[in-house]
């Protein structure tokens, strides 16, 4: 006869973490230290198969609501590579402007909403509403500003609609450019105020030199939209050879693949970009770096947040320069394109393979598509920045834990959470509730 047991336990169903940090330390020695990723795979690459290359950017932008512009742009770049299309200078400048807005949007979100509460020693952004109302209002205003600029360029601030293979379906009118300039000039003041705020904030001291990977270019442009792939260990490869950069491999405790290059792990993102391309930043961004006490080479992953703030200064300055240039020299509206699914065959299609490599806010992002002679996708591969950072985060944790073992479990938990959050992983919004499981912290 079965026995019956009444339990009545509630499990919260809000998103509270798809990542677990598991730490097991015995007599000062790490027995286990891993970042478990238990998020279910989403099979976007399979969804793309059989679809037209001309709709790939609309599908892949759904991979991420924060990085939807980067996914769109890398998707278009890969498609144009496969089709043999070179975008015009005007298109490239508008795409750079769009990517800058996403970089600003994502970095502002991370700096203010996810990292600042840690540094202010509160649990989340919400308590700051009472203690730092001006700061909260500034953060929300900054986000609204970049979202509005993004909407003027791409039709809406997430999942851009006007950016397609060959260019833009609608180009911004003069009054829209003037509106963008006003908003960006205003944003510049708020970015400066953010730099002032962070001047007085101390980050945890920790160093682990690793390999840093980002896009690189031979000209003076700070590479975000395109370029070769370079590393601080001297590797440089064309984007077509991206698989020789990522060298993906599977680990049992993560549904996301890990990557490595010249060493056991590598890092992508703002800190990697600054370690490789600091000289190409806008002069005001370099001034901000000096004011924040940030120097390259920099091996403290906690300072990825500071690197993001420095990039915010660069992106707002470069955005203003791009918009001013359009206002001075005008926009060629004959470049507006109407492609759709290329039903009219305005773009010649041939079978081929193309690769895109774009710097998303969290690091270099790759898309690769193989298409048939009808423009149907027969194979796709997408490698996102967070995947590339997971292995590096684990190696950071393995070096950090012995250095902080004398702290309380609560302090160790916070420092580990802050480390993971510093990478701004796509599981970032959940890592405020990231489970830290102490399997054991047994002392001598």
């Amino acid at each position, binding site marked *: 006869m079965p*026995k019956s047991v009444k339990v009545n336990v509630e499990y919260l169903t809000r998103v509270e973490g*798809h990542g677990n940090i598991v730490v097991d330390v015995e007599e000062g020695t790490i027995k286990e230290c891993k970042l478990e990723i238990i998020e279910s795979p989403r099979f976007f690459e399979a969804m793309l198969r059989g679809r037209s290359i001309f709709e790939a950017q609309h599908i892949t932008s759904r991979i991420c609501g924060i990085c939807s512009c980067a996914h769109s742009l890398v998707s278009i770049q890969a498609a144009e590579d496969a089709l043999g299309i070179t975008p015009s200078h005007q298109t490239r400048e508008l795409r750079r402007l769009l990517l800058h807005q996403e970089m600003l949007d994502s970095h502002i979100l991370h700096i203010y909403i996810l990292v600042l509460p840690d540094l202010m020693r509160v649990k989340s952004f919400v308590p700051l509403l009472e203690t730092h109302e001006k700061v909260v209002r500034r953060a929300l205003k900054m986000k609204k500003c970049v979202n509005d600029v993004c909407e003027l360029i791409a039709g809406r601030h997430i999942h851009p609609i006007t950016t397609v293979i060959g260019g833009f379906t609608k180009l911004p009118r003069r009054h829209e450019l003037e509106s963008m300039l006003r908003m960006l000039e205003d944003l510049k003041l708020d970015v400066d105020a953010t730099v002032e705020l962070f001047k007085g904030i101390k980050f945890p001291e920790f160093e682990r030199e690793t390999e840093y990977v980002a896009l690189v270019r031979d000209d003076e442009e700070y590479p975000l939209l395109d370029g070769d792939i370079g590393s601080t260990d001297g590797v440089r490869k064309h984007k077509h050879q991206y698989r020789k950069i990522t060298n993906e491999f599977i680990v049992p405790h993560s549904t996301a693949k890990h990557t490595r290059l010249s060493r056991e792990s590598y890092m992508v993102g703002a800190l990697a970009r600054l370690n490789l391309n600091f000289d190409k930043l806008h002069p005001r961004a370099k001034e901000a770096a000096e004011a924040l006490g940030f120097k390259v080479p920099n091996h403290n992953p906690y300072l990825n947040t500071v690197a993001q703030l420095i990039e915010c200064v660069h992106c707002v300055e470069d955005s203003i320069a791009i918009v001013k240039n359009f206002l001075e020299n005008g926009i060629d509206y004959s470049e507006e394109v109407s492609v759709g699914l290329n039903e009219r065959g305005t773009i010649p299609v041939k079978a081929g393979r193309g690769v895109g490599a774009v710097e998303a806010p969290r690091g270099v992002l790759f898309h690769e598509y193989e298409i048939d002679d009808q423009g149907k996708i027969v194979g796709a591969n997408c490698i996102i920045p967070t995947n590339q950072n997971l292995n590096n985060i684990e190696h950071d944790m393995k070096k950090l834990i012995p250095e902080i073992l004398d702290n309380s479990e609560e302090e160790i938990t916070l420092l580990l959470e802050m480390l993971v959050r510093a990478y701004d992983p796509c599981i970032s919004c959940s890592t405020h509730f990231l489970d830290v499981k102490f399997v054991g912290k047994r002392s001598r």
Partner: protein
Amino acid sequence: MHEIKFVKALVEDLVKRARELGARRITRVRIKMGEFSEIDPEVVRFYLQNCDEKDLFEGCGVEIEPAQGQTLILDSFEYEE
């Protein structure tokens, strides 16, 4: 896409409780699930049939009672020793 974490937590808790009671087999599980829980009941059934402890759930009946909001409650279970 986030549901696996919650289902895993619920099943792990259920297995722990059943093992502590000396259960050889869980014959019935009753779960209350809110309309906004964003969890597909089929995921729970699939998980029980394919988890590491699937032998424990062989022939197990799963009752899912609709509830309000985002509720996810392990209400009760029946087992054999």
